[in-house]
Protein backbone atom coordinates (compact mmCIF):
# COMPACT_ATOMS: atom_id res chain seq x y z
CA UNK A 1 0.00 0.00 0.00
CA UNK A 2 0.95 3.62 -0.28
CA UNK A 3 -0.25 6.14 2.26
CA UNK A 4 0.50 9.68 3.19
CA UNK A 5 1.41 10.06 6.83
CA UNK A 6 2.35 12.87 9.17
CA UNK A 7 5.19 12.26 11.63
CA UNK A 8 5.64 14.43 14.70
CA UNK A 9 9.01 14.56 16.41
CA UNK A 10 10.23 16.00 19.69
CA UNK A 11 13.51 17.88 20.05
CA UNK A 12 15.26 14.60 20.94
CA UNK A 13 13.80 12.30 18.29
CA UNK A 14 14.27 14.76 15.40
CA UNK A 15 18.03 14.43 15.59
CA UNK A 16 18.07 10.66 15.14
CA UNK A 17 18.13 8.99 11.71
CA UNK A 18 14.77 7.36 12.28
CA UNK A 19 13.19 7.80 8.85
CA UNK A 20 16.22 6.24 7.22
CA UNK A 21 15.50 3.09 9.24
CA UNK A 22 12.24 2.64 7.33
CA UNK A 23 13.99 1.60 4.16
CA UNK A 24 17.01 0.04 5.87
CA UNK A 25 15.04 -2.31 8.13
CA UNK A 26 11.86 -2.80 6.12
CA UNK A 27 10.88 -3.31 2.53
CA UNK A 28 9.53 0.23 2.30
CA UNK A 29 10.07 3.23 0.08
CA UNK A 30 9.46 6.67 1.50
CA UNK A 31 9.22 10.05 -0.11
CA UNK A 32 9.25 13.17 2.04
CA UNK A 33 6.71 15.67 0.75
CA UNK A 34 7.29 18.33 3.36
CA UNK A 35 9.35 18.72 6.54
CA UNK A 36 9.59 21.56 9.01
CA UNK A 37 11.31 22.31 12.28
CA UNK A 38 9.01 24.34 14.49
CA UNK A 39 10.17 27.07 16.94
CA UNK A 40 10.52 24.84 19.99
CA UNK A 41 12.67 22.46 17.99
CA UNK A 42 9.79 20.11 17.53
CA UNK A 43 9.44 18.98 13.96
CA UNK A 44 7.06 17.33 11.59
CA UNK A 45 7.32 15.62 8.27
CA UNK A 46 4.69 14.66 5.75
CA UNK A 47 5.67 11.72 3.65
CA UNK A 48 4.34 8.96 1.52
CA UNK A 49 5.24 5.46 2.57
CA UNK A 50 4.97 2.56 0.18
CA UNK A 51 5.47 -1.17 0.48
CA UNK A 52 3.74 -4.49 1.13
CA UNK A 53 0.95 -4.21 3.71
CA UNK A 54 2.75 -6.26 6.35
CA UNK A 55 5.96 -4.26 6.01
CA UNK A 56 3.97 -1.05 6.16
CA UNK A 57 2.43 -1.94 9.53
CA UNK A 58 5.80 -3.08 10.88
CA UNK A 59 7.28 0.23 9.77
CA UNK A 60 4.55 2.18 11.58
CA UNK A 61 5.18 0.10 14.76
CA UNK A 62 8.88 0.86 14.49
CA UNK A 63 8.22 4.59 14.23
CA UNK A 64 6.02 4.45 17.33
CA UNK A 65 8.72 2.54 19.22
CA UNK A 66 11.09 5.37 18.34
CA UNK A 67 8.64 7.75 20.09
CA UNK A 68 7.47 9.38 16.89
CA UNK A 69 3.80 10.31 16.74
CA UNK A 70 2.30 8.93 13.52
CA UNK A 71 -0.92 10.15 11.97
CA UNK A 72 -2.41 9.17 8.68
CA UNK A 73 -3.35 12.18 6.59
CA UNK A 74 -7.01 12.51 7.48
CA UNK A 75 -8.12 13.53 4.05
CA UNK A 76 -10.14 11.79 1.47
CA UNK A 77 -10.99 12.56 -2.07
CA UNK A 78 -14.55 13.02 -3.19
CA UNK A 79 -15.80 13.24 -6.73
CA UNK A 80 -19.18 14.42 -7.90
CA UNK A 81 -19.89 11.49 -10.21
CA UNK A 82 -22.73 13.22 -12.03
CA UNK A 83 -20.61 16.22 -12.83
CA UNK A 84 -17.52 14.38 -14.13
CA UNK A 85 -17.22 14.69 -17.93
CA UNK A 86 -14.82 11.73 -18.21
CA UNK A 87 -12.40 13.92 -20.11
CA UNK A 88 -9.39 12.21 -18.54
CA UNK A 89 -7.36 15.37 -17.84
CA UNK A 90 -6.85 14.37 -14.20
CA UNK A 91 -5.25 11.04 -15.08
CA UNK A 92 -2.12 12.86 -16.27
CA UNK A 93 -1.30 14.09 -12.77
CA UNK A 94 -2.47 11.26 -10.51
CA UNK A 95 0.70 9.68 -9.04
CA UNK A 96 -0.96 6.42 -7.99
CA UNK A 97 -3.38 5.70 -10.86
CA UNK A 98 -6.26 6.14 -8.41
CA UNK A 99 -7.84 7.99 -11.32
CA UNK A 100 -7.76 5.79 -14.37
CA UNK A 101 -9.40 5.19 -17.72
CA UNK A 102 -11.43 2.01 -17.48
CA UNK A 103 -12.25 -0.76 -19.95
CA UNK A 104 -13.52 -0.62 -23.52
CA UNK A 105 -15.84 2.32 -23.03
CA UNK A 106 -13.14 4.44 -21.36
CA UNK A 107 -15.04 5.90 -18.44
CA UNK A 108 -12.70 7.66 -15.99
CA UNK A 109 -12.93 5.90 -12.61
CA UNK A 110 -11.72 6.80 -9.15
CA UNK A 111 -10.36 4.13 -6.83
CA UNK A 112 -10.37 5.87 -3.44
CA UNK A 113 -8.31 3.02 -1.91
CA UNK A 114 -5.36 4.03 -4.06
CA UNK A 115 -5.73 7.78 -3.47
CA UNK A 116 -2.99 9.35 -1.35
CA UNK A 117 -4.78 12.69 -1.13
CA UNK A 118 -2.02 14.59 -2.94
CA UNK A 119 -4.58 17.05 -4.31
CA UNK A 120 -3.15 17.20 -7.85
CA UNK A 121 -6.44 16.27 -9.45
CA UNK A 122 -8.36 18.86 -7.44
CA UNK A 123 -6.34 21.54 -9.20
CA UNK A 124 -6.54 20.22 -12.74
CA UNK A 125 -10.09 18.88 -12.91
CA UNK A 126 -11.69 20.73 -15.80
CA UNK A 127 -15.10 20.98 -14.18
CA UNK A 128 -14.01 21.28 -10.55
CA UNK A 129 -15.85 18.15 -9.53
CA UNK A 130 -13.16 16.78 -7.17
CA UNK A 131 -12.56 17.98 -3.64
CA UNK A 132 -10.53 16.85 -0.67
CA UNK A 133 -12.28 16.72 2.62
CA UNK A 134 -10.93 16.11 6.08
CA UNK A 135 -12.41 12.96 7.53
Amino acid sequence: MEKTIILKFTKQTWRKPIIYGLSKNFDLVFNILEAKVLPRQEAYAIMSLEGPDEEYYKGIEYLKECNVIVEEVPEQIQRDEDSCTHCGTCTAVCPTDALFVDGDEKWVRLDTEKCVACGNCVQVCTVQCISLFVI
Partner: protein
Amino acid sequence: MAEVRKSFEEINEKIRSGKAVVLTADEMSELVEEKGPKAAAKEVDVVTTGTFGMMCSSGAMINFGHATPKIKASHVWLNDVPAYAGFAAVDIYIGATEPREDDPLNRVHPGRFPYGGGHVIEDLVAGKEVNLRATAYGTDCYPSKKFERDFALQDLPYAVLLNPRNAYQNYNCAVNMGEKTIYTYLGVLKPDGANGNYCSAGQLSPLLNDPYYRTIGVGTKIFLGGGQGAVIWHGTQHNPAAERGENGVTRAPAGTIAVMGDLKTMEHRYIRGASMLGYGLSLFVGLGIPIPILDEEMARFTGIRDRDIFTKIVDYSVDYPQGTGKVLGEVNYEQLRSGKFKFNGREVDTTPLSSYSMALEIARELKRWIEEEKFTLGVPQIQLPGTR
Protein backbone atom coordinates in the same frame (compact mmCIF):
# COMPACT_ATOMS: atom_id res chain seq x y z
CA MET B 1 -23.08 -8.27 -56.13
CA ALA B 2 -24.34 -5.15 -57.85
CA GLU B 3 -22.89 -1.80 -56.94
CA VAL B 4 -24.64 -0.09 -54.04
CA ARG B 5 -25.99 3.41 -54.60
CA LYS B 6 -28.41 5.13 -52.26
CA SER B 7 -29.57 8.73 -52.24
CA PHE B 8 -30.25 10.92 -49.22
CA GLU B 9 -33.94 10.82 -50.18
CA GLU B 10 -34.06 7.03 -50.23
CA ILE B 11 -32.37 6.84 -46.84
CA ASN B 12 -34.69 9.48 -45.37
CA GLU B 13 -37.68 7.55 -46.67
CA LYS B 14 -36.39 4.45 -44.87
CA ILE B 15 -35.94 6.48 -41.67
CA ARG B 16 -39.50 7.77 -41.88
CA SER B 17 -40.90 4.30 -42.38
CA GLY B 18 -38.78 2.93 -39.53
CA LYS B 19 -36.81 0.61 -41.82
CA ALA B 20 -33.40 2.28 -41.81
CA VAL B 21 -30.49 0.25 -40.45
CA VAL B 22 -28.41 2.47 -38.20
CA LEU B 23 -25.07 1.57 -36.59
CA THR B 24 -22.74 3.57 -34.39
CA ALA B 25 -19.27 4.18 -35.87
CA ASP B 26 -17.65 1.52 -33.67
CA GLU B 27 -20.26 -1.06 -34.64
CA MET B 28 -19.73 -0.18 -38.30
CA SER B 29 -15.97 -0.72 -37.96
CA GLU B 30 -16.62 -4.24 -36.75
CA LEU B 31 -19.12 -5.00 -39.48
CA VAL B 32 -16.81 -3.73 -42.24
CA GLU B 33 -13.96 -5.77 -40.85
CA GLU B 34 -16.13 -8.86 -40.75
CA LYS B 35 -18.03 -8.59 -44.04
CA GLY B 36 -16.14 -6.05 -46.10
CA PRO B 37 -17.30 -2.59 -47.26
CA LYS B 38 -19.52 -3.80 -50.10
CA ALA B 39 -21.74 -6.01 -47.97
CA ALA B 40 -21.75 -3.39 -45.20
CA ALA B 41 -22.87 -0.70 -47.65
CA LYS B 42 -25.75 -2.90 -48.70
CA GLU B 43 -26.81 -3.63 -45.15
CA VAL B 44 -26.34 -0.28 -43.41
CA ASP B 45 -28.03 3.04 -44.17
CA VAL B 46 -26.65 5.42 -41.56
CA VAL B 47 -23.60 5.47 -39.27
CA THR B 48 -23.69 7.74 -36.25
CA THR B 49 -20.57 9.47 -34.94
CA GLY B 50 -19.89 11.48 -31.81
CA THR B 51 -17.34 13.60 -30.03
CA PHE B 52 -17.25 15.29 -26.66
CA GLY B 53 -14.39 17.62 -25.84
CA MET B 54 -13.32 21.14 -25.02
CA MET B 55 -13.95 23.23 -28.10
CA CYS B 56 -12.59 26.73 -27.48
CA SER B 57 -14.07 28.36 -30.58
CA SER B 58 -17.57 28.27 -29.19
CA GLY B 59 -20.00 30.84 -27.85
CA ALA B 60 -23.58 31.96 -27.65
CA MET B 61 -25.45 34.60 -29.60
CA ILE B 62 -28.09 36.17 -27.41
CA ASN B 63 -30.79 38.79 -27.76
CA PHE B 64 -31.94 39.85 -24.31
CA GLY B 65 -35.03 41.79 -25.32
CA HIS B 66 -36.03 45.41 -24.84
CA ALA B 67 -36.88 46.95 -21.49
CA THR B 68 -38.43 50.38 -21.00
CA PRO B 69 -36.89 52.82 -21.48
CA LYS B 70 -34.87 51.17 -24.23
CA ILE B 71 -31.10 50.77 -24.28
CA LYS B 72 -28.52 50.31 -27.01
CA ALA B 73 -25.99 48.37 -24.98
CA SER B 74 -22.30 49.14 -25.55
CA HIS B 75 -20.77 47.03 -22.79
CA VAL B 76 -22.39 43.94 -21.38
CA TRP B 77 -21.41 41.47 -18.67
CA LEU B 78 -23.01 38.12 -17.88
CA ASN B 79 -22.18 37.05 -14.31
CA ASP B 80 -19.28 39.54 -14.62
CA VAL B 81 -17.94 37.89 -17.78
CA PRO B 82 -17.68 40.46 -20.59
CA ALA B 83 -19.77 39.79 -23.70
CA TYR B 84 -19.32 41.46 -27.09
CA ALA B 85 -22.01 44.04 -27.73
CA GLY B 86 -20.96 45.62 -31.03
CA PHE B 87 -24.19 44.62 -32.75
CA ALA B 88 -27.70 46.05 -32.78
CA ALA B 89 -29.19 47.32 -29.51
CA VAL B 90 -29.65 44.19 -27.41
CA ASP B 91 -27.75 41.55 -29.39
CA ILE B 92 -24.64 40.15 -27.71
CA TYR B 93 -22.15 37.35 -28.18
CA ILE B 94 -20.52 35.59 -25.26
CA GLY B 95 -17.36 33.64 -26.06
CA ALA B 96 -16.46 30.41 -24.26
CA THR B 97 -12.90 31.39 -23.34
CA GLU B 98 -13.68 34.83 -21.90
CA PRO B 99 -12.58 35.02 -18.24
CA ARG B 100 -14.55 36.78 -15.53
CA GLU B 101 -13.43 40.39 -15.35
CA ASP B 102 -11.79 40.08 -11.92
CA ASP B 103 -9.99 36.78 -12.66
CA PRO B 104 -6.34 36.87 -11.52
CA LEU B 105 -5.52 34.93 -14.73
CA ASN B 106 -1.97 33.59 -14.68
CA ARG B 107 -0.60 36.16 -12.24
CA VAL B 108 -0.22 33.34 -9.75
CA HIS B 109 0.92 30.61 -12.10
CA PRO B 110 -0.71 28.22 -12.88
CA GLY B 111 -4.03 30.11 -12.77
CA ARG B 112 -7.20 28.22 -11.91
CA PHE B 113 -9.71 30.06 -14.14
CA PRO B 114 -12.77 28.94 -12.20
CA TYR B 115 -15.46 30.77 -14.20
CA GLY B 116 -15.85 32.19 -17.68
CA GLY B 117 -17.99 32.44 -20.79
CA GLY B 118 -18.33 28.65 -21.09
CA HIS B 119 -19.73 28.51 -17.57
CA VAL B 120 -22.26 31.25 -18.35
CA ILE B 121 -23.51 29.13 -21.25
CA GLU B 122 -23.55 26.02 -19.05
CA ASP B 123 -25.50 27.86 -16.32
CA LEU B 124 -28.11 29.00 -18.83
CA VAL B 125 -28.54 25.48 -20.20
CA ALA B 126 -28.75 24.12 -16.63
CA GLY B 127 -31.67 26.47 -15.99
CA LYS B 128 -29.82 28.80 -13.61
CA GLU B 129 -30.36 32.52 -13.57
CA VAL B 130 -27.55 34.65 -14.95
CA ASN B 131 -27.00 38.29 -14.04
CA LEU B 132 -26.86 40.64 -17.02
CA ARG B 133 -25.40 44.14 -16.70
CA ALA B 134 -25.27 46.65 -19.55
CA THR B 135 -24.02 50.19 -19.97
CA ALA B 136 -24.62 52.56 -22.86
CA TYR B 137 -23.93 56.13 -24.00
CA GLY B 138 -27.58 56.91 -24.65
CA THR B 139 -29.25 58.13 -27.85
CA ASP B 140 -32.53 59.82 -28.69
CA CYS B 141 -34.05 56.49 -29.64
CA TYR B 142 -32.31 54.47 -26.88
CA PRO B 143 -32.12 56.86 -23.91
CA SER B 144 -31.23 54.38 -21.15
CA LYS B 145 -27.60 54.30 -20.00
CA LYS B 146 -27.73 51.43 -17.57
CA PHE B 147 -29.57 48.16 -17.34
CA GLU B 148 -29.37 45.18 -15.00
CA ARG B 149 -31.50 42.06 -14.66
CA ASP B 150 -31.28 38.36 -13.88
CA PHE B 151 -32.26 36.14 -16.78
CA ALA B 152 -32.99 32.44 -17.04
CA LEU B 153 -32.72 30.85 -20.46
CA GLN B 154 -36.48 30.85 -20.99
CA ASP B 155 -36.59 34.64 -20.39
CA LEU B 156 -34.27 35.31 -23.30
CA PRO B 157 -36.08 35.93 -26.60
CA TYR B 158 -33.18 34.36 -28.55
CA ALA B 159 -30.23 32.27 -27.40
CA VAL B 160 -28.28 30.06 -29.79
CA LEU B 161 -24.98 28.28 -29.62
CA LEU B 162 -22.87 29.62 -32.48
CA ASN B 163 -19.50 27.92 -32.71
CA PRO B 164 -17.06 29.09 -35.38
CA ARG B 165 -14.81 26.03 -35.09
CA ASN B 166 -15.76 22.61 -33.74
CA ALA B 167 -15.10 18.93 -34.31
CA TYR B 168 -11.51 19.14 -35.55
CA GLN B 169 -10.66 16.36 -37.97
CA ASN B 170 -7.76 14.86 -36.01
CA TYR B 171 -5.50 16.69 -33.59
CA ASN B 172 -1.91 16.65 -32.32
CA CYS B 173 -0.58 14.44 -29.57
CA ALA B 174 1.23 16.86 -27.28
CA VAL B 175 4.41 16.08 -25.34
CA ASN B 176 6.80 18.28 -23.39
CA MET B 177 10.49 17.70 -24.10
CA GLY B 178 11.51 20.57 -21.80
CA GLU B 179 12.72 20.37 -18.23
CA LYS B 180 9.75 21.71 -16.34
CA THR B 181 6.03 20.97 -16.23
CA ILE B 182 3.96 23.07 -18.63
CA TYR B 183 0.27 23.95 -18.61
CA THR B 184 -1.37 23.97 -22.03
CA TYR B 185 -4.75 23.79 -23.72
CA LEU B 186 -3.90 20.12 -24.07
CA GLY B 187 -3.59 19.73 -20.30
CA VAL B 188 -0.65 19.35 -17.96
CA LEU B 189 2.50 18.06 -19.65
CA LYS B 190 5.24 16.65 -17.49
CA PRO B 191 8.88 17.20 -18.47
CA ASP B 192 11.08 14.82 -20.45
CA GLY B 193 8.21 13.56 -22.59
CA ALA B 194 6.69 11.64 -19.67
CA ASN B 195 3.12 11.99 -20.88
CA GLY B 196 1.40 12.43 -24.23
CA ASN B 197 -1.96 14.17 -24.31
CA TYR B 198 -4.37 13.80 -27.19
CA CYS B 199 -7.80 15.09 -28.02
CA SER B 200 -9.83 13.27 -30.64
CA ALA B 201 -12.62 10.73 -30.54
CA GLY B 202 -10.64 8.80 -33.20
CA GLN B 203 -12.81 6.16 -34.87
CA LEU B 204 -15.97 7.82 -33.48
CA SER B 205 -15.04 11.33 -34.62
CA PRO B 206 -17.42 12.83 -37.24
CA LEU B 207 -15.00 14.21 -39.82
CA LEU B 208 -12.64 11.23 -39.56
CA ASN B 209 -15.55 9.07 -40.75
CA ASP B 210 -16.15 11.27 -43.81
CA PRO B 211 -12.58 12.31 -44.62
CA TYR B 212 -13.43 14.10 -47.89
CA TYR B 213 -16.64 15.73 -46.60
CA ARG B 214 -18.77 13.90 -49.14
CA THR B 215 -21.86 13.92 -46.92
CA ILE B 216 -21.11 16.61 -44.32
CA GLY B 217 -21.74 20.11 -45.63
CA VAL B 218 -23.71 23.27 -44.99
CA GLY B 219 -27.18 22.15 -43.95
CA THR B 220 -26.19 18.84 -42.36
CA LYS B 221 -28.40 18.28 -39.31
CA ILE B 222 -26.44 17.33 -36.21
CA PHE B 223 -26.66 16.47 -32.52
CA LEU B 224 -25.41 19.58 -30.77
CA GLY B 225 -25.26 19.78 -26.99
CA GLY B 226 -28.15 17.36 -26.66
CA GLY B 227 -30.37 19.33 -29.02
CA GLN B 228 -30.66 19.60 -32.76
CA GLY B 229 -28.22 21.81 -34.63
CA ALA B 230 -26.76 22.25 -38.08
CA VAL B 231 -23.48 22.69 -39.88
CA ILE B 232 -23.55 26.30 -41.10
CA TRP B 233 -20.19 26.64 -42.86
CA HIS B 234 -16.68 25.26 -42.79
CA GLY B 235 -14.95 26.28 -39.57
CA THR B 236 -12.03 28.63 -38.99
CA GLN B 237 -8.67 27.03 -39.80
CA HIS B 238 -10.42 24.40 -41.96
CA ASN B 239 -7.52 22.82 -43.83
CA PRO B 240 -8.49 20.04 -46.24
CA ALA B 241 -4.96 20.10 -47.71
CA ALA B 242 -3.43 18.54 -44.60
CA GLU B 243 -1.36 15.40 -45.12
CA ARG B 244 -3.42 12.25 -45.70
CA GLY B 245 -2.70 8.56 -45.54
CA GLU B 246 -3.49 6.09 -48.31
CA ASN B 247 -6.92 5.55 -46.76
CA GLY B 248 -7.66 9.27 -47.23
CA VAL B 249 -7.59 9.92 -43.51
CA THR B 250 -5.76 13.06 -42.43
CA ARG B 251 -2.59 12.56 -40.38
CA ALA B 252 -2.68 16.03 -38.82
CA PRO B 253 -5.30 18.61 -37.77
CA ALA B 254 -7.39 19.24 -40.91
CA GLY B 255 -11.08 19.97 -41.48
CA THR B 256 -13.33 21.87 -39.07
CA ILE B 257 -16.98 22.91 -39.06
CA ALA B 258 -18.94 25.92 -37.86
CA VAL B 259 -22.17 24.88 -36.14
CA MET B 260 -25.27 26.40 -34.69
CA GLY B 261 -28.17 25.21 -32.55
CA ASP B 262 -30.86 26.47 -30.21
CA LEU B 263 -29.58 26.61 -26.61
CA LYS B 264 -33.12 26.09 -25.36
CA THR B 265 -33.17 22.53 -26.72
CA MET B 266 -29.82 21.56 -25.18
CA GLU B 267 -28.99 19.44 -22.14
CA HIS B 268 -26.65 20.28 -19.30
CA ARG B 269 -24.88 16.92 -19.65
CA TYR B 270 -23.55 17.85 -23.09
CA ILE B 271 -22.71 21.55 -22.59
CA ARG B 272 -20.21 22.16 -19.80
CA GLY B 273 -17.96 25.07 -18.90
CA ALA B 274 -14.31 24.01 -18.64
CA SER B 275 -11.28 25.29 -16.72
CA MET B 276 -7.79 24.36 -17.84
CA LEU B 277 -5.18 24.87 -15.15
CA GLY B 278 -2.65 27.51 -16.22
CA TYR B 279 -4.30 27.94 -19.61
CA GLY B 280 -7.79 29.34 -19.34
CA LEU B 281 -11.39 28.62 -20.08
CA SER B 282 -13.31 26.62 -22.62
CA LEU B 283 -16.56 24.81 -23.28
CA PHE B 284 -17.16 21.07 -23.44
CA VAL B 285 -19.39 20.49 -26.44
CA GLY B 286 -21.11 17.22 -27.25
CA LEU B 287 -21.53 16.86 -31.00
CA GLY B 288 -22.66 14.01 -33.23
CA ILE B 289 -23.19 13.68 -36.98
CA PRO B 290 -25.13 11.01 -38.85
CA ILE B 291 -23.39 9.80 -41.98
CA PRO B 292 -25.41 8.28 -44.81
CA ILE B 293 -23.90 5.18 -46.40
CA LEU B 294 -24.45 6.24 -49.99
CA ASP B 295 -22.12 3.66 -51.48
CA GLU B 296 -19.26 1.28 -50.84
CA GLU B 297 -16.76 4.09 -50.42
CA MET B 298 -18.74 5.59 -47.54
CA ALA B 299 -18.86 2.15 -45.91
CA ARG B 300 -15.10 1.89 -46.25
CA PHE B 301 -14.63 5.39 -44.78
CA THR B 302 -16.91 4.75 -41.80
CA GLY B 303 -15.30 1.36 -41.26
CA ILE B 304 -12.17 3.10 -40.05
CA ARG B 305 -10.58 1.93 -36.80
CA ASP B 306 -8.40 3.65 -34.26
CA ARG B 307 -5.37 1.78 -35.54
CA ASP B 308 -5.86 3.26 -39.03
CA ILE B 309 -5.78 6.83 -37.75
CA PHE B 310 -2.38 8.42 -37.18
CA THR B 311 -1.45 11.74 -35.69
CA LYS B 312 1.67 13.78 -35.08
CA ILE B 313 3.60 13.96 -31.84
CA VAL B 314 4.45 17.61 -31.23
CA ASP B 315 6.64 19.19 -28.55
CA TYR B 316 4.63 21.86 -26.75
CA SER B 317 7.62 23.22 -24.83
CA VAL B 318 9.25 24.70 -27.95
CA ASP B 319 7.99 23.60 -31.35
CA TYR B 320 4.31 24.40 -30.91
CA PRO B 321 4.65 27.81 -29.21
CA GLN B 322 7.45 28.87 -31.58
CA GLY B 323 5.66 27.50 -34.62
CA THR B 324 8.73 25.64 -35.91
CA GLY B 325 6.53 23.04 -37.60
CA LYS B 326 8.80 20.28 -36.29
CA VAL B 327 7.21 16.89 -35.71
CA LEU B 328 8.75 14.32 -33.38
CA GLY B 329 6.96 11.27 -34.70
CA GLU B 330 3.63 9.63 -35.36
CA VAL B 331 1.34 7.49 -33.25
CA ASN B 332 -2.03 5.89 -33.94
CA TYR B 333 -5.16 6.10 -31.83
CA GLU B 334 -5.14 2.46 -30.85
CA GLN B 335 -1.77 3.06 -29.18
CA LEU B 336 -2.97 6.33 -27.64
CA ARG B 337 -6.15 4.74 -26.36
CA SER B 338 -4.21 1.83 -24.80
CA GLY B 339 -2.77 4.23 -22.20
CA LYS B 340 0.88 3.91 -23.22
CA PHE B 341 3.08 4.12 -26.29
CA LYS B 342 6.78 3.77 -26.96
CA PHE B 343 8.57 6.89 -28.05
CA ASN B 344 12.22 7.88 -27.91
CA GLY B 345 13.00 4.57 -26.19
CA ARG B 346 10.67 5.17 -23.27
CA GLU B 347 7.08 4.45 -22.31
CA VAL B 348 4.89 7.50 -22.54
CA ASP B 349 1.66 7.57 -20.51
CA THR B 350 -1.22 8.94 -22.54
CA THR B 351 -4.00 11.22 -21.39
CA PRO B 352 -7.21 11.65 -23.34
CA LEU B 353 -8.80 15.10 -23.14
CA SER B 354 -11.74 14.25 -25.31
CA SER B 355 -14.07 11.76 -23.66
CA TYR B 356 -14.41 8.53 -25.63
CA SER B 357 -17.17 7.31 -23.31
CA MET B 358 -19.26 10.43 -23.82
CA ALA B 359 -18.60 10.33 -27.58
CA LEU B 360 -19.94 6.78 -27.59
CA GLU B 361 -22.97 7.87 -25.59
CA ILE B 362 -23.67 10.61 -28.14
CA ALA B 363 -23.30 8.26 -31.13
CA ARG B 364 -25.76 5.88 -29.42
CA GLU B 365 -28.18 8.68 -28.59
CA LEU B 366 -28.11 9.89 -32.18
CA LYS B 367 -28.80 6.34 -33.33
CA ARG B 368 -31.81 6.31 -31.01
CA TRP B 369 -33.00 9.64 -32.42
CA ILE B 370 -32.96 8.21 -35.94
CA GLU B 371 -34.56 4.91 -35.00
CA GLU B 372 -37.18 6.14 -32.54
CA GLU B 373 -37.74 9.81 -33.27
CA LYS B 374 -37.32 9.56 -37.03
CA PHE B 375 -34.57 12.14 -37.12
CA THR B 376 -33.84 12.51 -40.83
CA LEU B 377 -30.65 13.54 -42.59
CA GLY B 378 -30.03 17.08 -43.83
CA VAL B 379 -28.90 17.23 -47.45
CA PRO B 380 -25.82 19.45 -47.79
CA GLN B 381 -26.71 22.61 -49.71
CA ILE B 382 -23.14 23.83 -50.05
CA GLN B 383 -20.16 21.47 -49.87
CA LEU B 384 -17.20 22.22 -47.64
CA PRO B 385 -13.91 23.19 -49.29
CA GLY B 386 -11.92 20.04 -50.08
CA THR B 387 -14.92 17.89 -50.96
CA ARG B 388 -14.04 15.13 -53.35
